[in-house]
């Protein structure tokens, strides 16, 4: 079993207030890995990233993150990644990494993702160049996510995003803004590649639990919705999956 802690949308301001840090300090007692689902800062300011880094430096488990739209706002995303890296966080964008916990392995494939909407009410790469660019950006990120998931050969595979791949976990948000909250293209890519769990943030008024059309559990961990410093998911292998791990992937039909 591998214990995954996750939270997103912590929106740090310029000074650490210890609100979340006090709980993160003991995170290693409850989890083996910590995932941050983007929107780590208020508007992508470097002081905000440093304030967050101060709180993260004390965490004793491996940390992985993606950036969210707020983290891109000041065009300092590269610098933010460096600050987080110095604090021990690996920021993933169309990349994956794996670690070993006890005798099991877990791979994290990450992308911020982007919008576009969901099947039946989504944008298409049609018309003005700006509209095509919008949808092509999502297609590109979804493709990168699929490739990075496919590269993983671990007991467990987790897709880490900021934007949502499904509608279930954004239910509660206003319908008019659904296309800005996520895209079905992300779910389609995940279902093709396979994964054991999908983590995302972004939807402050959404729901925690959902599932892709292919049956993969999706969890929205946006802090304003969770009201908790993190959620923990214990990933366990079924007996069927254990027997069949000689295959490339850990997702085995039961």
């Amino acid at each position, binding site marked *: 079993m591998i214990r995954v802690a996750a939270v997103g949308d912590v*929106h740090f*301001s310029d000074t650490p207030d210890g609100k979340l840090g006090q709980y993160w300090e003991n995170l290693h007692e409850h989890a083996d890995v910590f995932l941050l689902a983007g929107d780590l800062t208020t508007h992508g300011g470097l002081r905000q990233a440093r304030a967050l880094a101060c709180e993260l430096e004390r965490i004793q488990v491996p940390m992985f993150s993606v950036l969210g739209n707020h983290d891109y706002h000041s065009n300092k995303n590269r610098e933010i990644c460096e600050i987080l890296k110095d604090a021990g966080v690996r920021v993933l964008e169309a990349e994956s990494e794996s670690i070993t916990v006890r005798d099991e392995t877990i791979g994290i494939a990450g992308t911020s993702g982007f919008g576009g909407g969901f099947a039946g009410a989504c944008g298409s790469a049609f018309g003005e160049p700006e509209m095509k660019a919008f949808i092509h950006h999502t297609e590109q990120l979804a493709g990168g996510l699929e490739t990075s998931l496919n590269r993983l050969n671990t007991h467990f595979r987790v897709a880490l995003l900021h934007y949502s791949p499904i509608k279930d976990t954004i239910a509660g948000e206003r319908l008019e803004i659904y296309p800005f909250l996520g895209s079905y293209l992300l779910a389609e890519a995940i279902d093709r590649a396979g994964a054991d769990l999908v983590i995302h943030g972004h939807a402050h008024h959404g729901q925690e639990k959902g599932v892709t059309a292919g049956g993969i559990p999706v969890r929205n961990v946006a802090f304003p919705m969770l009201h908790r410093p993190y959620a*923990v998911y214990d990933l*366990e292998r079924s007996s069927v999956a254990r027997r069949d791990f000689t295959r490339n992937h*850990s997702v*085995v039909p039961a």
Partner: protein
Amino acid sequence: MNADYQYLVAKIQGALADDPRVNMLDIRIMVIQNRVHLIGEVMSEERRMAATDVVSAVAPGIEVRNELRILDVSLPAEPEVIID
């Protein structure tokens, strides 16, 4: 709903999103007569107070009813078991 109302709500929403003291995209805005109600949750008291200042600056002369609450943090919950 008249046009003035819609444009005022949009103007306030844009200002709350753009202003670095707030940068919130999901504050609910209601305009009733000459009052603006701000509803939702923010991370800090500092940000809550800044929201009033931002609205006052873009809509001078309008009373601001700041009903924003500070996000509370509960203890971590029990883990959820996910079996592949």
